[in-house]
């Protein structure tokens, strides 16, 4: 169903050997291994390799120095801003930011201008992604026309043009009948329906978590219930229609509990969490830092613990960035008027590796949530180093420490609350279709 973007190898050689690394291909390989790539595809992963390799200069050897070699990361949730908001990000800068963070496949939300609710926009996005030649771009189409929540978008056309899922993103479908119909209609195409779970009436202009901190700061709050009532609605509709509902960026403990219960009953649901939601809390808002403003908002420590537990027991299937670039001048507005969202590609991996350091997840589990699991949920032909697959690979040093400097991001925008953080885990090399698209060795 999903067409692979054809990435032509730029090098003259058709054979690449990544040697001397620790390969973690979740569920398949975990240990010292070399990776042999030919004509942009994985040929063999093992140690020693069984395939004979010519000992001459036609083979490009990439030394992995004991670093981790994993499938290129897959992000189910990002905003590339093109068309319409090129001053925040373009598909080219977003895709460059992605590969710098180790992501080789990224699914972009339809909240562009115009909205991705027809094949022209979808094809434009795919063409721009191809032209950029960095990460593979998989568009997500709109559920409703202009994401206005009223009439269904031409979903069949969107899927045929290359959309891998549908979502109205930050303008969630409030009308439950429309949502029901969207799910039923999507059944014909075998695509997941992604919902940003938020009852906009309950949010009522809120701009941070509702709780003691919002009370102290005099800031309008967004209650947990704003997310949870929509999670509950979507679970009921998944049950009613039997269609796969993917819940974007869960942020509250009760959301995790609701999904856990639903999964226990065998409902076709999946869920994602963003690194910021398991890394920091509403306390980050205290000095009115607009880079700590996102939707859903940063919650409490109790929620953070529940999200981690959700990752551990599989309630939460994947880690997604919700990469949401905004220009400096927009984030320089006062907290309540600044836009929601932060960039995420270039900090997602090190923030996820903190979970490994803290003993929450094993390294293989962490990589799984960023590769195999997301690819599987959206039926993407990536996320694994299985022979025959496209050679989308990330090589990273899990131990190297570095300081996050937003001015060095490849993204056009710098809106992150993690600037100045010392993190561990540095991407050394990213390959897409056997082509080195990022090299920081």
């Amino acid at each position, binding site marked *: 169903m999903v067409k692979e973007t054809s990435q032509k190898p730029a090098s003259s050689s058709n054979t690449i050997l990544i040697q001397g690394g620790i390969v973690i291909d979740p569920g398949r390989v975990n240990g010292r291994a070399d990776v042999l790539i030919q004509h942009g595809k994985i040929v063999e992963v093992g140690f020693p390799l069984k395939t004979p390799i010519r000992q001459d200069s036609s083979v490009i050897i990439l030394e992995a120095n004991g670093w981790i070699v994993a499938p290129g990361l897959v992000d189910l949730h990002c905003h590339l801003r093109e068309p319409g908001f090129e001053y925040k990000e373009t598909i080219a800068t977003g895709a460059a930011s992605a590969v710098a963070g180790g992501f080789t496949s990224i699914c972009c939300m339809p909240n562009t201008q115009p909205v991705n609710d027809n094949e022209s926009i979808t094809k434009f996005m795919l063409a721009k992604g191809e032209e950029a030649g960095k990460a593979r771009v998989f568009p997500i189409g709109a559920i409703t026309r202009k994401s206005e929540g009223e009439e269904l978008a031409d979903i069949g056309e969107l899927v045929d043009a290359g959309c891998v899922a549908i979502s109205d993103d930050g303008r969630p479908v409030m009308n439950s009948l429309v949502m029901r119909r969207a799910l039923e209609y999507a059944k014909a195409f075998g695509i997941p329906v992604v919902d940003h779970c938020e009852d906009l009436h309950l949010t009522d202009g809120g701009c941070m978590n509702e709780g*003691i901190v919002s009370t102290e700061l005099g800031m309008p709050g967004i209650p947990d219930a704003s997310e949870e009532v929509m999670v509950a609605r979507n679970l009921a509709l998944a049950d009613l229609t039997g269609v796969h509902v993917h819940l974007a960026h869960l942020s509250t403990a009760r959301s995790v509990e609701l999904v856990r219960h639903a999964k226990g009953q065998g409902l076709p649901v999946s869920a994602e969490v963003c690194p910021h939601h398991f890394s920091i809390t509403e306390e980050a808002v205290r*000095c009115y830092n607009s880079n700590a403003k996102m939707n859903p908002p940063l919650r409490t420590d109790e929620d953070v613990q529940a999200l981690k537990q959700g990752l551990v027991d599989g309630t939460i299937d994947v880690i997604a960035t919700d990469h949401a670039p905004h220009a400096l001048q927009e984030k*320089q507005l006062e907290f309540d008027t600044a836009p929601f969202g932060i960039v995420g590609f270039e900090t997602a991996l090190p923030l996820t590796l903190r979970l490994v350091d803290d003993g929450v997840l094993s390294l293989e589990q962490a990589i799984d949530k960023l590769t195999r699991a997301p690819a599987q949920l959206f039926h993407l032909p990536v996320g694994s180093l299985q022979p025959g697959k496209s050679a989308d690979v990330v090589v990273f040093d899990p131990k190297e420490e570095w300081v996050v400097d937003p001015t060095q991001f490849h993204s056009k925008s710098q809106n992150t609350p993690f600037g100045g953080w010392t993190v561990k885990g540095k991407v050394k090399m990213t390959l897409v279709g056997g082509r080195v698209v990022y090299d920081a060795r």
Partner: protein
Amino acid sequence: MGLQRKDLLTIAALTADEIQLILTTAESLKEVGGRDIKKVPALRGKTVVNLFFEPSTRTRTSFELAAKRLSADVINFSPSTSSIVKGETLIDTARNIESMQADIIVLRHPSPGAAENLARSVRSSVINAGDGWHEHPTQALLDMFTIKEKKGRVEGLTVVIVGDIAHSRVARSNILALTKLGAEVRVVAPPTMLPDSIEHFGVTVFYRLDDALIGADVIIMLRLQRERLSRALLPSIREYAKLFCLTPERLNLAKPEAIVMHPGPLNRGVEISPSVADSVAAVILDQVTNGVSVRMALMYLLSGSGERSTLNE
């Protein structure tokens, strides 16, 4: 002892000693307002800019008068909301003003935290004259001054704050100031108008006005914003007035010498009955008078006059 601060942004950041210092200074400056020539040269040659992004008459006038009584030059700057729409940030506006060598910027802004952000970006002293629902510290200070003046102390008094606590910067600043000075604070409002976790501020929550008033020394009435009706916070003004209007009968539930305060402007017949507003218990006009003294004291202390205060925080 001076005020070791560049700015006055919140009551939350002040210690009880700092509050007392401001009140004591205000006390000695109050006398200026009673003179024939209501002026002292303390801030001569200094420039005070009133930067008001929200319409305000009384607070702005009070700051203006305070600055003028200290002999400062005062500029009123009320950017139209259109300049915000045009994309000029608060900081840009403020840097423009700072470039005109303003010594003190008095800011009122609809966004919580605006004063704090501004203070970080300019060298001028910043006084918060109200930031969204967050704080209105000078209102709380003049309220403390008035309570102290009428009651001799704040510590140990039972103070009831009535009305829309959730959307009131006056309530937040007053709760913080009163608890820091050792008063027992009660808040009373319909639950729709109480913010999350308000009890963590050390207050007792009441839903019925009659219950809250018993034994009160001080009653602070908040203004009801009529636009709250459209957000399903209240059934009607009529019902609010029935449940929360301070009438003479209700006032009798408080201590005999209880005083009634209101930050103004009054909604007569809504949160306060005319006969209470005009009674001897009401100290509403004293609050206005004291507002000038307290703001004089603040500007005096922040400008580093007298004992020069250090500006590094």
